């Protein structure tokens, strides 16, 4: 069936901010969808609140709305754009839920909008667990015994019937939120009550446990002629019980016979048909009893998912792209497989390699969080690797994760006994692959390790194989060529071999030996068809095999190093910059070669760069890619400054190895990153920094702190995302901090800075070419200095700074960039206190805020940075139109719209071992996983939009609870009074109430948590509070006021109401509430905003208001 002719205009809904369980993969899928639809001649409108995405680039859609993903705002967009159809299956659960909401409340019908690629009844059948089980049984397949329960008591009764342990799964949540195992009634009681709250329909499934069974997934696609294909099978190494997003997974399935695989395929297809997924992709999970092969269906996702992004990258079959084509009427056989260019998409990819995915966690960011892996997803990112066998792929994946150890033997040895290690393996946590190897090394058998871990014996045997190869390397009298080749074939890195052979003088020695012996990787191609047909797309992975497939090339190449796994502090924003560099370099006549190992991203789409190498971002792997590309044609150099800390850390070594490093030199990077060198930079430029020092012992730290006075900000050097950063108010805490920071050494000292209380913090992104500065944007943080910039909301243009301040900032940035020697982007953080400008830090690289600034100002900074890196000047880029002809981010028009960035925090994902929530207070350590942007003519509305996008709408009436630290009481009186004047009922703790009453604010006193029954926590949990204002005080500990605040904040988070922890945040919220009460919040596309900014015909405030639905 050909394309439908009745569709002219499609609205695509994105997935919003990056969250655990819903991350960058939806930028990848959404971007693909938009491109496909436009290529088919359709008008595409897009709504997504996440500015850090490629999909919200103005050139991806015809009309891009960076607006909150709520049914209300999406309705406004529909009213303005009047699309024919809505495509919501590529934006994760968020988009699907909005689409269902708009369908059920009649908005789609009202505006005549058709839902495409999805059928609401089918979605309900797929997601309603009981209906789904009935369907599974109706087609003759098996499912775990279970019941949907609406109350805790019902859950307990069901558990009695199916027997403990039981699984709790809340209905309609994503990433397994609220899911878990309960082994007894007390546990079930607690988990069921959380689960009922997490579920938007307030039901949970209580289910027979299939804990420890083998876990599989199939990715399927269906078209409207009922053709169904299986794109990929995935086998989880972590058995049932660990969320698939947190599991180490392998594609294709490794331990199924054809009989068993085909049975799974038959059941999957029958389920898909019976559920009635309209067209598009779908993911089905299965569990298989390892003892007898009993196959049960666990669940399905009737949409593009994280797993489908992984499957797309793993197979080369672009699921999202094809899903978009199917949604507008094509059938699979009418779509050509991009990779071969001749065969149709109506086939099932065959892999002649093995894919391994390993999740990346961030438990270190959430002290107290339970590190056990459960059915609630907790990982923040993932890596994927490919090899010609499992061991090769495993080794590459393990070193791609960028954890402390980069594969077996590279971390601290685990000296526990075999018994202890086996016991440890019984509890799923991050890093069990290492524990499994240690257990084998300690004498445990493959069977014992398999039994303890639940890993299939085949996988354990593969780990044993790597171990045997490692032992052979360690024991051999000398490292021969066949042995070295064998080691490389099983995935051992030079670094691992160096760890096993100390006499080889480290990784460099191993590399030298390896090259002398001619043991070099070749590059194979991902081609969907196991080489049956020739591949046109250069999507490569390395392998120690015989034949390489890299084709020669004429044009000079630039390699762009990506950012590796998403983690807190290094996320999708860096991928955005890398993708922009690809586009800019292609425009400038280069072949852009992407190197990255993150399957969730746009950068690892085979369509993005001219060549894609899916490789770990280690020195060894990157250098080999450089050599392979040098053999293929001229290489202009490597860009290390756009992918965050990961590639930056490779810059110096690459340069030392003779690789041209483009842009800012590694030496200049070092000048900015090393505190000593940076002090000289500041001295030379005459700029001030807060008083500071570096210490390697407590005695030194104490001396510095005494000199500059508490509070001080302490942190390790060379970090991203403020890892290990703390504000310290006294000696005892300082001593504890130094004791805890085990890695402190002369090479890695601790930095002790004066902490500027109540300062305004400023973030600046700028370009420098050696002559000129282009200041991209000045962002003013809404929270005070001391909250990590990644977690702080900020506004652009700055809302309280005058033009004199901006000129001062511009001049300081220019001096810094010139002195450091920046050739490209620089990010500087300043603090202004008492009219004095302090430099907090400078990073000569793309920052997290580059996409936000680019979207707010309509200037694509990363593209310009890539062009500067290859030698073009800002003056030239102004002429070419890459940068504006004149002016920069310091002289935006008076009526430029205000963009507010707000961070999104994952606190609700984590629980302590006891099952309580983790603290939600913000600190210098970054904790957010993503961000949203609110864009409007004035600050209040923009801020309100940012809050709606991040957390749900601010309340315009109701009850506010206020509990303030003493230092905040004075400054908070005015905003609280304003809320009271707006009609809010005010609850406050006794001390706060006293101050408020003296200022004429009527308020009711409510007890603290520690004051027993009738306290505020109960009121919050009962739903009697609509907004919480709690500024933390006291030192972190287990008692006193700090604990009270902790209980209040976690209650607010679990009840899903706004929780404001700073006075500045409160003031902004009050402005937002006022704007919402005026009721004139409209929407405006980015294209319109940018046209206004560029054309001088400013939109003005009315441009947003006039678009109201």
């Amino acid at each position, binding site marked *: 069936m050909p394309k439908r002719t009745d569709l002219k205009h499609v609205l695509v809904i994105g997935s919003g901010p990056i969250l655990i369980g819903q991350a960058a993969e939806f930028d990848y899928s959404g971007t693909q969808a938009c491109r496909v639809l436009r290529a088919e001649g359709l008008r595409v409108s897009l709504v997504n609140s996440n500015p850090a995405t490629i999909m919200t680039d103005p050139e991806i859609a015809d009309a891009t709305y960076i607006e909150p993903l709520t049914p209300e705002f999406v309705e406004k967009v529909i009213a303005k754009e009047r699309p024919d159809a809505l495509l919501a299956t590529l934006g994760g659960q968020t988009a699907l839920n909005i689409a269902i909401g708009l369908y059920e409340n009649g908005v789609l019908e009202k505006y005549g909008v058709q839902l495409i690629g999805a059928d609401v009844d089918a979605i309900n059948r797929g997601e309603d667990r009981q209906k789904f089980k009935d369907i599974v049984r109706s087609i003759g397949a098996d499912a775990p015994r279970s019941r949907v329960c609406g109350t805790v008591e019902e859950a307990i009764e069901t558990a009695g019937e199916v027997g403990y342990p039981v699984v709790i799964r809340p209905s309609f949540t994503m990433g397994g939120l609220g899911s878990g195992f309960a082994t007894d009634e007390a546990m079930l009681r607690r988990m069921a009550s959380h689960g009922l709250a997490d579920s938007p329909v307030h039901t949970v499934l209580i289910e027979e446990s299939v804990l420890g069974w083998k876990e599989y997934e199939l990715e399927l696609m269906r078209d409207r*002629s*009922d*053709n169904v*294909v*299986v794109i990929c099978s995935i086998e989880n190494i972590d058995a049932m019980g660990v969320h698939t997003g947190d599991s180490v997974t392998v594609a*294709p*399935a*490794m*331990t*199924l*016979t*054809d*009989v*068993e*695989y*085909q049975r799974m*395929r*038959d059941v999957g297809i029958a389920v898909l048909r019976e559920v009635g997924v309209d067209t598009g992709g779908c993911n089905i999970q299965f569990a298989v009893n*390892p*003892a*007898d*092969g009993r196959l049960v269906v666990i669940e399905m996702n009737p949409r593009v998912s994280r797993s489908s992004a992984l499957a797309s990258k793993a197979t080369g079959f672009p699921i999202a792209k094809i899903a978009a084509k199917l949604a507008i009427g094509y*059938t*699979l*056989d009418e779509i050509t497989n991009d990779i071969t260019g*001749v*065969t*149709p998409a*109506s*086939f*099932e*990819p*065959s*892999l*002649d*390699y*093995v894919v391994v995915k390993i999740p990346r966690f961030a438990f270190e960011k959430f002290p107290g969080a339970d590190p056990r892996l459960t059915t609630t997803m907790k990982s923040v990112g993932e890596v994927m690797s490919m090899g*010609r*066998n*499992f061991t090769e792929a495993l080794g590459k994946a393990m070193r791609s994760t960028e954890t402390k150890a980069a594969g077996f033997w590279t971390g601290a040895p685990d000296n526990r006994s075999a018994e202890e290690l086996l016991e440890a393996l019984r509890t799923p946590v991050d890093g069990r692959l290492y524990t499994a190897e240690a257990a084998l090394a300690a004498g445990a058998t*493959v069977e014992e390790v398999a039994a303890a871990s639940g890993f*299939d*014996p*085949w996988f354990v*045997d593969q780990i044993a*194989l790597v171990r045997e190869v490692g032992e052979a390397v360690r024991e051999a009298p000398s490292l021969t060529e066949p042995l070295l080749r064998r080691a490389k074939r099983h995935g051992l890195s030079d670094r691992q071999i160096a760890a096993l052979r100390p006499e080889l003088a480290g990784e460099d020695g191993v590399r030298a030996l390896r090259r002398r012996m001619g043991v070099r990787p070749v590059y*194979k191609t991902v081609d969907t*068809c*196991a*080489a*049956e*047909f*020739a591949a046109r797309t250069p999507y490569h992975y390395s392998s120690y*095999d*015989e*034949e390489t497939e890299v084709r020669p090339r004429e044009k000079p190449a630039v390699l762009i190093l990506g950012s590796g796994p998403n983690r807190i502090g290094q996320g999708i924003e860096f991928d955005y910059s890398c993708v922009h560099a690809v586009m800019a370099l292609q425009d400038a006549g280069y072949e852009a070669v992407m190197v990255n190992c993150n399957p969730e991203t746009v950068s690892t789409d085979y369509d993005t760069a001219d060549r894609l190498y899916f490789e770990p971002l280690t020195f060894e792997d990157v250098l080999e890619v450089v050599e392979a590309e040098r053999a293929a044609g001229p290489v202009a150099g490597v860009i290390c400054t756009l992918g965050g800390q990961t590639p930056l850390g490779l810059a110096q070594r690459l340069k030392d190895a003779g690789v041209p490093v483009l842009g800012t030199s590694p030496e200049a990077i070092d000048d900015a990153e090393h505190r000593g060198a940076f002090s000289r930079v500041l001295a030379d430029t005459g700029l001030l920094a807060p008083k500071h020092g570096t210490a390697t012992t407590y005695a030194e730290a104490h001396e510095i702190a005494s000199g500059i006075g508490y509070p001080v900000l302490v942190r390790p050097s060379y970090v991203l995302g403020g890892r290990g950063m703390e504000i310290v108010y006294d000696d005892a805490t300082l001593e504890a901090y130094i004791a805890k920071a085990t890695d402190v050494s002369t090479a890695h000292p601790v930095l002790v800075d004066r902490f500027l209380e109540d300062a305004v913090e400023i973030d600046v992104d700028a370009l420098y070419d050696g002559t000129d500065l282009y200041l991209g944007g000045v962002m003013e943080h809404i929270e005070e200095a001391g909250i990590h910039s990644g977690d702080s909301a900020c506004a652009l243009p700055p809302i309280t700074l005058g033009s004199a301040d901006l000129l001062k900032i511009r001049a300081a940035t220019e001096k810094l960039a010139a002195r450091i020697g920046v050739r490209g982007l620089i990010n500087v953080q300043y603090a202004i206190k008492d009219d004095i400008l302090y430099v907090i830090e400078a990073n000569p690289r793309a920052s997290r805020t580059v996409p936000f600034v680019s979207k707010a100002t309509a200037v694509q900074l990363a593209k310009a940075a890539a062009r500067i890196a290859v030698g073009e000047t800002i003056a030239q880029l102004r002429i070419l139109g890459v940068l504006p002809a004149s002016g920069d981010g310091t002289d935006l028009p008076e009526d430029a719209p205000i963009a507010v960035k707000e961070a999104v925090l994952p606190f609700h994902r984590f629980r302590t071992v006891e099952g309580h929530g983790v603290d939600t207070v913000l600190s210098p350590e970054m904790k957010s996983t993503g961000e949203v942007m609110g864009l409007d003519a004035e600050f209040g509305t923009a801020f309100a939009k940012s809050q709606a996008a991040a957390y749900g709408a601010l309340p315009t009436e109701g009850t506010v609870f206020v509990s303030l630290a003493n230092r905040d009481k004075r400054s908070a009186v005015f905003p609280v009074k304003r809320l009271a004047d707006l009609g809010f009922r005010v609850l406050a703790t006794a001390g706060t109430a006293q101050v408020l009453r003296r200022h004429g604010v009527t308020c009711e006193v409510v007890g603290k948590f520690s004051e027993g029954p009738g306290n505020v926590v109960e009121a919050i949990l009962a739903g009697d509070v609509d907004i919480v204002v709690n500024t933390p005080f006291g030192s972190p500990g287990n008692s006193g006021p700090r604990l009270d605040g902790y209980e209040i904040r976690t209650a607010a988070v679990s009840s899903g109401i706004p929780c404001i922890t700073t006075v500045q945040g409160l003031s902004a919220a009050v402005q937002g509430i006022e704007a919402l009460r005026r009721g004139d919040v409209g929407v405006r596309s980015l294209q319109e905003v940018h046209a206004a900014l560029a054309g001088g015909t400013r939109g003005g405030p009315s441009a947003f208001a006039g678009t109201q639905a």
Partner: protein
Amino acid sequence: MREALLVLEDGRTFRGEAYGATGTTVGEAVFATGMTGYQETLTDPSYAGQIVAMTAPHIGNTGVNDEDDESSRMWVAGFVVRDPARRPANWRATGTLDDELAAQGVVGISGIDTRALTRHLRDRGAMRAGISTELSADELLARVTAAESMTGADLAPTVSTQEAYVVPAVGEKRFTIAALDLGIKTATPRHLAALGVETHVLPSTATAEELLAAGPDGVFLSNGPGDPAAADYAVAAVRGVLDARRPLFGICFGNQILGRALGLGTYKLRFGHRGLNQPVLDRVSGTVRVTSHNHGFAVDAPLDRPTDTPYGQVEVSHVGLNDDVVEGLRCLEVPAFSVQFHPESAAGPHDAAPLFQRFVDLMEEARSHQVHAGGPAPVVEHTTGENT
């Protein structure tokens, strides 16, 4: 670790390790892209005379079991894998593949760049090859170039049963068929039995008279190895069945035999179709089925129009979407049809299994015609059966 060599007739040589039996073997080198089902592949008689390279790197992970053999033994001439499993991991496994290959005398090679081999065969076509754990490359090449080519090879009699046997229906018997064993797999009678069909399996050289002797409701032509142009005996038998207007269903080699019986030509594909992921368009229903393939030869027939044959018009019912190869024939005037792929799968997806039902429907229809015509039509007596 014993070394092994794989030498192709154009001289390309791969050095790896011995896998399975040691010794020397020659055959036609082909690649198979299925990611599962090596046990079924090894025991599929259609692979007789072929050195099969598996493109999936890990082979042997599920060991071998007593249930998944497709015939009484392994038929491949040699086996090429990249990473053989060191241990099987599956609840049904009764042994390792390595041991089973050795026990059945299948000479194999492991540890070579199977993707490089596949690309070579893809670009230059399937060709003769040899594996040896004892000869030098030159000696092996001499053996390879002296070996017979697959073109013109008549292999069905070497894999066929020598004695007729019966596979009973499961449950009530509704139909009886005669199956010409050109290399039949056990999955085929199993599928038929489940539909109430009793299958009388006859040797490949059975004549039309022998096929029709028991008065079967239909005749089935199995898959099998070799060049269909060298199996004139089977072509003659099929013409006899067509003359008798007896319902006929052929698969794979059987499709080629039917084609030749209808007067169509067959030709050798450059590298063939061997995999479990091949999209085939059913031109009648317009649906695409993902099907299991194993064929080096194909029928030559026009795709755009029916062809006139001595048995009336025949049309191409199925087309391979990857390369427009004829994947099925449907006679418009006699009750006969065939497909080039494997509805019995094993290994492979079950999408095409309903074709067995179509065969049953055809027999049902024929039977109802007979009933309306007042009893069994004496077609057998009327036929000359002498079309050779």
